């Protein structure tokens, strides 16, 4: 068509639209617009300063979150400072509560002597042993229970009855069961993390997409290979959820056990400080427990991200 070639020289989109609407198209006719002349891509300014500016703009959300996080922790410490330095007492009594400065001072002293560090090492070792054994038992058991109905039907009722019992309630029983104090504390740590790991592994197994199993069978996978190549990786993200939750419960259980029956450990240290009227050490112990719990959860999430790269959201 003649007018199509005439239109081909048109440059701007506005112009193209105007031409196209000039004369109404006949019903059923196809009116081709001339090809669009692409805009030149804007050349970003080069140089370190410009790049830095762009980096800030692109990471605005993250930077804001970090700044706000620091601000909120700062405000918390400031409030703590005001409440304790002025020994305020509004029904809740801050009279004997140590101030942040006192806690910092006792932290300096504590880290200078090796004893405090020993408490931390002992607690971490108990967590590591109890949590590792729980992982090594609960994950395979959960995988097998998820795959074999008979095993699930036999084990599940027992686990459901045991699960609501808090690990702390096991302390007297654990002391009777195990020959040494150390073993009973590790046992309680193990129990605390065992059930969250087991339940999450089981849940992970129940969400395995059946079509993936069938696909694997069609490609010649037998039982062992299907387990290794399909069930296990499919359940892995959920297993890591269980490990993260289990780690949290392991710390809760460990501190309770150490407070009741320990001679060492950060939980024992915190309780002992109360008995010895060293109030600033109570806060120090608590902060240490918080930091250690946070760090171990972070570590598990980091490992989880590394071993399940496909599950990382982009």
């Amino acid at each position: 068509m003649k007018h199509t070639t005439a239109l081909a020289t048109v440059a701007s989109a506005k112009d193209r639209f105007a031409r196209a609407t000039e004369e109404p198209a006949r019903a059923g006719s196809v009116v081709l617009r001339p090809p669009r002349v692409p805009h030149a891509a804007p050349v970003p300014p080069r140089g370190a300063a410009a790049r830095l500016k762009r980096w800030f703009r692109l990471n605005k959300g993250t930077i804001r979150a970090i700044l706000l996080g620091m601000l909120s922790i700062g405000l918390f410490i400031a409030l703590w400072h005001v409440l304790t330095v002025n020994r305020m007492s509004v029904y809740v009594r801050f009279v004997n509560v140590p101030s942040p400065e006192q806690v910092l001072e006792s932290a300096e002293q504590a880290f200078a002597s090796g004893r405090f560090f020993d408490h931390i090492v002992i607690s971490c070792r108990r967590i590591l042993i109890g949590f590792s054994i729980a992982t090594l038992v609960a994950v395979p058991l959960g995988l097998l229970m998820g795959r074999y109905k008979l095993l699930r039907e036999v084990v599940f009722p027992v686990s459901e009855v045991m699960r609501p019992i808090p690990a702390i309630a096991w302390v007297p029983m654990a002391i009777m069961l195990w020959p040494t104090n150390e073993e009973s504390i590790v046992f309680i740590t193990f129990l605390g993390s065992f059930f969250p790991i087991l339940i999450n592994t089981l849940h992970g197994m129940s969400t395995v997409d059946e079509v993936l199993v069938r696909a694997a069978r069609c490609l010649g996978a037998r039982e062992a290979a299907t387990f290794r190549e399909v069930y296990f990786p499919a359940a892995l993200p959920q297993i890591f959820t269980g490990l993260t939750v289990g780690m949290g419960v392991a710390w809760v259980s460990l501190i309770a056990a150490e407070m009741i029956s320990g001679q060492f450990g950060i939980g024992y240290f915190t309780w002992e400080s109360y008995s010895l009227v060293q109030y600033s050490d109570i806060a120090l112990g608590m902060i240490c427990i918080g930091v250690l719990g946070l760090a171990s959860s972070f570590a598990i999430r980091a490992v989880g991200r590394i071993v399940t790269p496909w599950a990382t959201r982009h």
Partner: protein
Amino acid sequence: MSASAKKGLIEVSDFCLSYETLDGAMSAVEDADLLVRPGEFVSIIGPSGCGKSTLLNAVAGFLKPTRGTVTVDGEAVKGPGADRGMVFQQYSLFPWKTVRENVEFGLKMRGVSADERKRSARTLLGLAGLSQFEDQYPDRLSGGMKQRVGIVRALATGPRVLLLDEPFGALDAQTRQIMQQILTNLWERLEISVLFVTHDIDEAIFLSDRIYVMTARPGSIKAEVTVPLPRPRDSTLQLSPEFLGLRAELGALIREESLKAMGGELNADALKGLAINLNGANLSDVI
């Protein structure tokens, strides 16, 4: 290549499959017979719920017939195996494996060395135009690409037959046409038998040498239609009088069964009556 050298003969005879319920046995498929000759492209179409996927799953080895036999190259099907590649309606790529690892899976199961696996997978991915995506995880791919990888994965072990269960059902119309072309190209190159389940009449005609039409549940074979259209086929074929004629014929057969499947009271006359009523009156008056 002579016909006798080719493999991939599928025979299904006197096939019945029923489920046990409280009210007795419920029949899904009754007395179905079908045949796929080596190198042939055969489709099964029918109304939804007619048991076409049931038949396919029986050939794949996931379902055992209550009565009758299913054989591939004369051997009775005992369970799923790599000699029968399968492509599913749902995307069934392993999310934890990259595209290439997905394609390598069948060869890995067979114990082929890593180097050799990699080489075969790369060749096949090249054929399907997926080379640049080999290291991606499946969730980065579009639906069409996922299904292409699915097909390539099923072909990687060199199966005698390829079974496809509405593989393009979730794709948009344009992607679907391109996928049909790709499947045809692969089938022509690899000379294997294909059994293809779909509810799309155009798709069945465009792809197949022969089409089986199934009845409503309990499903059995209602008709067998040979597609006389020459190959290679392209999309312009869909406007030819032969194509449109076949389409009308198959459409009528399926429509009859679909109405049956929707229940006795909804017959063709009832539908006509409904349309006339609505033409005359306001919709709010009718309701």
